[in-house]
């Protein structure tokens, strides 16, 4: 069993490794009840981290390439069309201009996945044919998760049938808000079941859970119910991924690993749009969870505009001149 202290080199030799999936565990309500999350202290840690960690020059370029490889390039709009999705997939295959990647000796770099609505899964799968880039589908009545439960499960099954390798489900926030952890556990269990071999990311919609304590509890319950990833947000809540929420969730991941030995992935989504932010997130993951988590099977950024800023930073690294947004192909 790899642990958090597995060295980066070991992990790098096994780029395609998939850890044993999280099969979950019986719901432990005592554990859920004992969870503590001190908001002020968590905020202090989050606020000082950017000042404590700095990545420069080649290291920064490498870290930004890593961020791209961990990115779920996403389009989740009502006006998505097949052509739009194909364009996004083209960007996922070639996220940075070949000239820049060549200078970095990073040819072949792709994003971690493409993330779309169910109706666009087939289009995306076809567009990514011949690559290893998986398609993720948001599911279960995304983003509110309030459609009939059987339809939500059916939606998962249909997305999987359409070729999605990853399913991003949304939890029923009301279960967390009312402390009905059993209901949340049961719901998550059934969704995991419906996913079959597809990996499931549980979106907690942390911006709607009210407190960090609730975030920590919901994280644990979803992991107990077999989530492969826990994810912050749909991107549609008023507040999406933040560093304090991230710290709370990855500490829950660490606690779950301490208890069960199982490593669960983490995906912050929404609001991460600057290269600098991505570096801070990576540093937080590296320091709190360890290098093993800096691989696409355990960490993803859910982002739509982050890539553009990273491209500009990479061009700056290569040329020494600050770049412009229009110099980089859009997705």
């Amino acid at each position, binding site marked *: 069993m790899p642990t*958090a*202290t597995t060295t*980066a*080199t070991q*992990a*790098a030799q096994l780029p395609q490794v998939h850890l044993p999936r999280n099969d979950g565990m019986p719901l432990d309500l005592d554990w859920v009840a004992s969870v*503590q*999350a*001190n*908001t*002020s*202290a*968590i*905020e*202090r*840690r989050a606020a*000082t981290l950017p*000042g*404590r*960690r*700095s*990545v*420069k*020059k*080649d*290291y920064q*370029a*490498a*870290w930004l*390439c*890593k961020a791209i*490889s961990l990115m779920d390039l996403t389009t989740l709009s009502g006006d998505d069309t097949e052509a739009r999705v194909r364009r996004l997939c083209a960007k996922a295959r070639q996220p940075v201009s070949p000239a820049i990647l060549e200078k*970095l*000796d*990073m040819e072949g770099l792709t994003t971690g996945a493409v993330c779309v609505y169910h109706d666009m899964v087939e289009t995306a799968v076809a567009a990514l044919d011949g690559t290893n880039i998986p398609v993720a589908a948001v599911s279960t009545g995304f983003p509110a998760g309030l459609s009939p439960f059987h339809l939500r499960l059916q939606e998962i099954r249909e997305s999987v049938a359409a070729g999605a390798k990853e399913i991003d489900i949304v939890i029923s926030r009301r279960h967390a808000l009312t402390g009905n952890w059993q209901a949340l556990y049961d719901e998550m269990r059934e969704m995991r079941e419906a996913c079959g071999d597809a990996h499931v990311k549980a979106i907690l919609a942390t911006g709607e859970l009210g*407190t*960090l*304590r609730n975030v920590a509890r919901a994280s644990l319950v979803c992991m107990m119910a077999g989530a492969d990833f826990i994810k912050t947000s749909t991107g549609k809540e008023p507040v999406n991924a933040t560093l304090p929420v991230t710290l709370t969730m990855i*500490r829950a991941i*660490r606690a779950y690993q*301490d208890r069960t030995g199982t490593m669960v992935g983490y995906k912050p989504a929404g609001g991460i749009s600057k290269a600098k932010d991505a570096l801070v997130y*990576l*540093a937080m993951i*590296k*320091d709190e969870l360890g*290098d093993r988590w*800096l691989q696409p099977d355990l960490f993803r950024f859910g982002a739509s505009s982050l890539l553009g800023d990273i491209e500009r930073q990479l061009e700056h690294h290569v040329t020494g001149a600050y770049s412009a947004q229009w110099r980089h192909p859009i997705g």
Partner: protein
Amino acid sequence: MTVKEIFETMDYGPAPESAAEALQWIADKGGIAGHYIDGKFGPLRDDFPSTNPATGERLAGVTKGTEAEVATAVKAARKAQSAWAKDHHKRARVLYAIARQMQKHSRLLAVMETLDNGKPIREARDIDVPLAIRHFYHHAGYAQLMSDELPDREALGVCGQIIPWNFPLLMLAWKIAPALAMGNTVVLKPAEYTSLSAMVFCEICTAAGVPPGVVNIVTGDGETGAALVAADVDKIAFTGSTAVGRIIRQQTAGSGKALSLELGGKSPYIVFDDADLDSAVEGLVDAIWFNQGQVCCAGSRLLVHEGVADRFYAKLKTRMNTLRMGNPLDKCIDVGAIVDPVQLDQIKQMVGDNTEGDNFQTAAPEGCFYPPTLITGLSPASTLMQEEIFGPVLVSTTFRTPAEAVEIANNTRYGLAASVWSENINLALDIAPKLVSGIVWVNGTNMMDAAAGFGGVRESGFGREGGWEGLQGYTKPKAAQKPAKPIAPYTSEDGTPADPLDRTAKLYIGGKQARPDGGYSTPVFNPRGKLLGHVSDANRKDIRNAVEAMNAAKGWAKTTGHLRAQIIYYIAENLNARADEFAARIKSMTGKSGTAEVDAAIQTLFSAAAWADKFDGQVHGVPIRGVALAMKEPVGKIAALCDDTPLLGLVQAMAPAIAMGNRITLVASHAFPLAATDFYQILETSDVPAGVVNIITGDPAALASDIAKHLDLDAVWSFSPRDLAETIERESAGNLKRTWVTQNPTLKETLHAATEVKNVWIPYGE
């Protein structure tokens, strides 16, 4: 490594801050740090080197200040002081200008600090320098407000200030900002290892328009410091080790110099089982690995609830492994260099000598570095649980109950700071007041701000830096004291009793009238030589008994102000009922009418009773989401030598002391003791709990020494006209108890002396 390789390893890589500008600055100064006197640099001599501890490289030569140079600096400060004290608004402008100038040169200051001290640039840049700037901004405000808000206070004069090497610029700011704001001028000596940021500060003073002589810096070592202590200054403010603080206490004894000491600590860091353990682990990073643990208020003594200890230690060790140690100028470094090989050797020796518990250490680079260390399984009896290490070494033990946590936490000679981690507000706010320390952080650590006082109790010293409470130490009452002449007891060859019925007053200890241990008594005569009676001659054992009685009365500190007020009013009521009798007693001893004195005593009792539930603390406006409660706590156990107003002298010490929740032992007027001994009956009939007030009689000169030496007293006051300051101040160095030698203090001053401000920081948010 190539980008491709780093892509796999995801290492941090180097992220160095450039030292070029700071090194150029030193070179431009001729490569020498030295004095800044009367607005000018010099003389500058290369008497000893200042080195970068991270590399061992020489940074500059340092001038070792001589006695004559110190005297020149003090003279310049003296000359500048009266003009500086005159215009509060001008002072506010200058302090504001200093803050602005520091902001402009913030990176130079930060880099200089890191080069000189070895602390991570992140800390110098994000903590030391901003906090130092904040002190000048904040104190510009106090300068502006002084005439309105402190109308009966004035500057002390010239302040000699001696600061340590752990926060060279920040300690300079903590010392200079309040002194200047209140109209003092200063002569400051930086630590010998770290003089360079002070040099930049001198340049800033010139640019900010600080008048010549207002700020003087004299560099040097311990000998220079000793010369400053001995110089013609009005106050010594010292931050440093308890050992040196004790020497300074002894050397300044009887000199009339005010003194504030901010000394060592062994601050407890208490983790309850309901705490957010991950956050508490992270807190420890800021508590003991901040500045390589070279922090006087470092949370160096970890106390963990037994049931979660193993889990907590495991989390802590995991976290320790991710601390990055190395070149302090690297922006991605958590732990830098130890300030000097001498300090490194001391840490190594202390840890090396320890044979108890389990050691866990991470790796350290070659050179002047010491790895983050955790030693678990110690007990309070272990040396390392008691002695300050002043390095990145955390020692730990466990506790079972909240009461035991408090007991272990307070089992120390120090009392600077404490951290309490619990998600239960009832528990946290119950523990905070019980901790013997000047600062308590709830679910946090090492939070500091100019608006909240910093300073300790017990052997961590006395005085506060920051906040309104910090201004007390840089001002004095405007009303000049007219020193009274000591009155010798009347003597007689004759010895005829004024009243044939013998009365021999005993001592009043623990609510009972007790015969003196020594078995001696002294006659008391009236002015015409007639014998009025005998009083007991107390000795050191009677002092001991009185302290034990005060210990037994510890519940008094926890009573409500309302209850204490009621009891003090009752004392006044009973005294009033016997006013004529006391007036007559005063007249019989002094030959003068006692009516006015009895009336004044009753008034004083009323005033003290009035204050008992009104001498409120404050909520400081610190820059966090949360509050810093400046709670006024009783000083503890006080012994007071009374002046020679037979009744009022007793009451003016007693009433405010007990009103604030202290226990007190009063040494009655030597010349006129019988009003005090009559007062026993008032106390006995007024519901004053046994041991809260004890009264003894005897020779104040002899008793002063016994009192000052007693290690279980928190304060000694002398209002006596006898010259006892030297004895009291020198002998008090044993436990660094608070001393207050004055005459005719106002009630308000006495209330201040009877209380100590504890700042309880409570960040909140869910």
